[in-house]
C-alpha cells in the first residue's frame, strides 16, 4: 500500500511490546499482568503478519499468528482459573500476597 511501509507496522508492534513489558514489570494485580502478556502477544502477532505481507507472497506468518491467538486463549483460560484459585486461598489477587513458598 502506498505510503505505509513495513517500518510503520514494526513501530506499532514495538510500542505495544514496550507498553506490555512495562505492564508486566510494574503491575501487582495478577489480572493486570495477564493483560500485559496479551499486549506482548499482540505485538508479536503484528510483526508476524507484517512480515508475511511484505516478505513475499506467503501466508505462513498469518498461520503462525492464528496459532499465537489460539495459545493466548488457552493461556488466558488457565491463567484466570489460577487467579480465581489464588483469590480463594489468599483473599487477594495481589501477587505480593502469594509468598508462601518464598522462605
Amino acid at each position, binding site marked *: 500500500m502506498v505510503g505505509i511501509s513495513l517500518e510503520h507496522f514494526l513501530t506499532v508492534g514495538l510500542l505495544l511490546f514496550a507498553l506490555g513489558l512495562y505492564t508486566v*514489570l510494574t503491575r*501487582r494485580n495478577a489480572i493486570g499482568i495477564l493483560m500485559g502478556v496479551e499486549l506482548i502477544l499482540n505485538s508479536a502477532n503484528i510483526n508476524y503478519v507484517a512480515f508475511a505481507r511484505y516478505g513475499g507472497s506467503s501466508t505462513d506468518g*498469518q498461520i503462525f499468528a492464528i496459532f499465537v491467538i489460539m495459545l493466548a*486463549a488457552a493461556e*488466558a483460560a488457565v491463567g484466570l482459573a489460577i487467579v480465581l484459585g489464588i483469590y480463594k486461598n489468599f483473599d487477594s489477587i495481589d501477587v505480593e500476597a502469594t509468598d508462601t513458598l518464598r522462605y
Partner: protein
Amino acid sequence: MSLAVVLFYAFAIFTVVCAAGVAFSPNVVYSAFALMGTLLGVAAMYVFLAADFLALAQVLVYIGGILVLMLFAVMLTHRIANVNISNRSVGRLPALLVVGGITMIMGRAIYRTSWVVGTELPDGPSTYAIGTGFLGTYVLPFELASFVLLAVLVGAVAISRKELRDAQG
C-alpha cells in the same frame, strides 16, 4: 496523504494510546476496557495488512472470549466498593529504564536495517491459503493445537472446581 494513510495513522495512534491506558490506568476495570480498544486497533492493523480472516479471528477470540473472561475474573475477585486503587503499580522508575533501553535498542534495529521487501501479498481473501496451510503443511501443529485446547479445558475445570480440588485432598 491518501485516505488509507490517514486511517492507518488514526488506528495506530488509537492502538498505542489504548495500550498506554492498559499500562498506566489505576483501575483494573478501565485497564480491561482500554485493552478492548487495543485489540480492536490491532484488528484494524490486520485489515491494513490484508489479513481479513485474522482480523475477524482477533475480534471473535480476543474480544469475544479472552476479554470477557478477564472482565468476569475482575468482577469475581474484587469487592466493587474499593475498586478505585485496584491496579497498583510498584517499581515504576526501574521498569521505565529497562523498557526505555529495550525500546531504544529495538527501535535502532528497526530503522537501521534495510529490510528486503519482496512482492506484497495481494489484497483479497486469505482464507483459501490459510485453509490449505492448516490441512497441508501445518496439519501436525493443527492437530496438536486441538489436543492442547482439550488439555487446557480439562485443566481449567480441574483447577477451579471446588469438589475436584477437595477430592484430591
